[in-house]
């Protein structure tokens, strides 16, 4: 029996065992158990369902999603897409969804940045900085988010009115109506420039890859940032100039009750964002700190002993290892920030929950309203999970 001869039996595959109908057969028991449990859960669900159907009938509550096409008649202050109260409930809900995404995405980005900074500060050699960061983390994590949101909202309301607005520079006004910034009047030229900005970013990324590959070939490192800067800033500028350099600034100005024109960041949005970012940053800081500490001191020393600069140590040695530890808990924080954005309802930011809530209140169709909320969050949660898992797998691939 040598290695080379193929043993014909090795080609055999496992047979299936027949099922015996006997209570003492493990598999029979398994099936019975499952039928029992599923049956129990199923009948509870059916019972609830039939109650619901009956109740809906008795109380003459309409069902179905027909209301989505009806006129909503509810005013929404902030909308990314055009909206007026004469639009349908569907559109109102879309506006709510976009508002949720607006706060979640910006929140995730800012919380990541702030959390990382605080996490690093906790490891700082400066005692005062490290201690302050530690106190911050402890306090933030031990107070309910809702309380923090209410607190920030109350603070923001303490800002002066539009007439006494804080006016640090031309066109910038901070008042209890929010933060007003000058904004350019959008024209085609700007769209082209924006397009160029995106293209420039992509090109920079490509260039960086190219530069790295070339460095691998001849050893000479090529500075990426001047080219990147040229591509991301210069290119849009040139295009913008070529389009006739359209430049009409929409300056916010006090007219009537309020500022007109310009870009507005409302206090509701700002309070929600502030609360979410400060709260989540406390958790992210701990994750980042743990991630960095998970990289043994010896790794730093070995890298330094090889002559790597501290930036290189960070980029080539520490981050790749720390990220492996950081990504999974970070994913759940991103999910949390998204779910927590639903607290908007308490401080008057009109997110999906707020609008679905008003909708179900006006139409009386509670089941549909709640179903919409849950569906939206499940979809978002699932997407974030999938993306982060994919990214995690990619990083893990680098690892081994």
């Amino acid at each position, binding site marked *: 029996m040598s290695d080379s001869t193929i043993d014909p039996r090795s080609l055999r595959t496992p047979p299936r065992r027949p099922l015996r109908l006997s209570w003492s057969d493990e598999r029979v028991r398994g099936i019975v158990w499952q039928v029992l449990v599923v049956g129990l859960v199923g009948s509870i669900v059916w019972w609830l369902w039939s109650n619901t159907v009956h109740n809906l009938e008795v109380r003459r509550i309409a069902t179905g999603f027909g209301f989505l096409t009806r006129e909503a008649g509810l005013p929404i202050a902030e909308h990314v897409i055009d909206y007026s109260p004469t639009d349908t409930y569907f559109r109102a809900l879309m506006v709510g969804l976009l508002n949720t995404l607006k706060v979640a995405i910006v929140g995730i980005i800012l919380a990541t940045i702030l959390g990382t900074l605080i996490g690093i500060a906790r490891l700082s050699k400066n005692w005062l900085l490290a201690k302050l960061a530690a106190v911050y983390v*402890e306090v933030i994590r031990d107070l309910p988010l809702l309380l923090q949101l209410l607190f920030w909202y109350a603070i923001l309301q303490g800002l002066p009115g539009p007439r006494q607005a804080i006016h640090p520079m031309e066109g910038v006004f901070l008042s209890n109506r929010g933060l007003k910034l000058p904004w350019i009047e959008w024209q085609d030229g700007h769209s082209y420039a924006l397009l160029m900005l995106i293209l420039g970013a992509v090109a920079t990324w490509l260039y960086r890859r190219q530069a790295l590959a070339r460095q691998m070939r001849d050893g000479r490192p090529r500075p990426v940032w001047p080219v990147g800067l040229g591509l991301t800033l210069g290119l849009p500028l040139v295009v913008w100039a070529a389009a006739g350099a359209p430049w009409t600034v929409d300056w916010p100005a006090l007219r009537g009750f309020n500022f007109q024109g310009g870009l507005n960041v409302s206090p509701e949005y700002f309070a929600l964002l502030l609360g979410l970012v400060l709260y989540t940053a406390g958790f992210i800081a701990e994750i980042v700190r743990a991630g960095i500490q998970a990289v043994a001191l010896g790794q730093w020393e070995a890298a330094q002993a090889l002559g790597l600069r501290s930036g290189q140590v960070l980029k080539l040695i520490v981050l790749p290892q720390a990220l492996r530890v950081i990504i999974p808990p970070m994913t759940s924080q991103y999910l949390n920030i998204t779910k927590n954005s639903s607290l908007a309802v308490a401080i008057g930011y009109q997110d999906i929950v707020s609008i679905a809530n008003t909708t179900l209140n006006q139409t009386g169709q509670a089941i549909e309203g709640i179903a919409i909320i849950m569906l939206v969050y499940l979809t978002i949660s699932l997407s974030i999970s999938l993306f982060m898992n994919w990214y995690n797998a990619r990083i893990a691939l680098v690892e081994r």
Partner: protein
Amino acid sequence: MSDLTLNTPAAASPEAVSRSAPLSQVGLLGWARANLFSGWLNTAVTLVLAYLLIRWIVGFAEWGIVNAIWSVPDNQTQACRDLKGTGACWAVIAEKHRFILFGTYPFEEHWRPALCVLLFIGLYVVSAMRRFWRPVLGLIWAVVLTLIGVLMWGGVAGLSYVPQERWGGLVITLILATFGLAFAFPLAILVALGRRSKLPAIKALCVLYVELIRGVPLISLLFMASVMFPLFLPEGMNIDKLLRAQIAIILFAGAYLAEVVRGGLQALPKGQYEAADALGLSYWQKTGFIILPQALRMVIPPLVNTFIGFFKDTSLVLIIGIFDLLTAGKTAIIEPAWQGFGIEVYITVGAIYFVFCFAMSKYSQNLEAELNRHRRR
């Protein structure tokens, strides 16, 4: 040979007096130099932070202590209003603290919820002590929770009956969190076991439950409990609002705790399962005597952290109008005379939450360190 040997004074007298470090190295000065002023960047950071910190502390002390008003005669809040922005009006707390703590519970009976709060705290302290980590702890919980129920409801032993809708304040927060945990825990264990079951349908059910609940915000569950739940029940049957919120919190906590417990189950070496099988223990014997005792012990620190989370999350019942600590605080300032003193109330309510959460989180950190030390040994 002798020219190669170093004939050092140290060699002659092994107990050579060690030279003390340069002054800049030791003592307070050395510490400050090393930790606060090493390098110009460090120094700058220290100075800026110290300046901001002192300014903030001084400002807060001025507002909160120096300029503050501590009490006013019967609802004459004009003095407070005149001071707005420059000084705190702690009079609102002096006037409303019992409402914030106990909500609409009958005024003369406030000793009952107060006693309950103490009982809860005692329960936490006892549960925190490792020498009580025995089955008897379950009994203690059952007894104390029953006692709390009796105290709150009354109707027996000469206590007057207090219906549930009158309960409020801190005690509601503690009830929602503690009962939530007490009931979610067994549920979580079942779900965690189910998720590791070999039976596909049961596993699928458990996965579905956990992922569904974890995918949606708690407030959507609370909304569901408050507006949809009554539709689920047969006509004429209804469940009290607090109970509905409690059920929502239990379902929510159950899913999160199940994941924590599952972590413990997974961390247990396979050999433990096999050894139990080889001894002929049945599934439930194996689970009860071998698996759970070890798995649960392992997950106590994350369990405490999850509990802190629920404790904070109970504040969301504000949204469905249950008078927990935060809602009571907010309702306290509806009365026209006291409108507009939100910051003071939020700070007070925040301090109460903080005391509870901070104690628990410190405890969990110590426990974690201790258990790790134990494990390493």
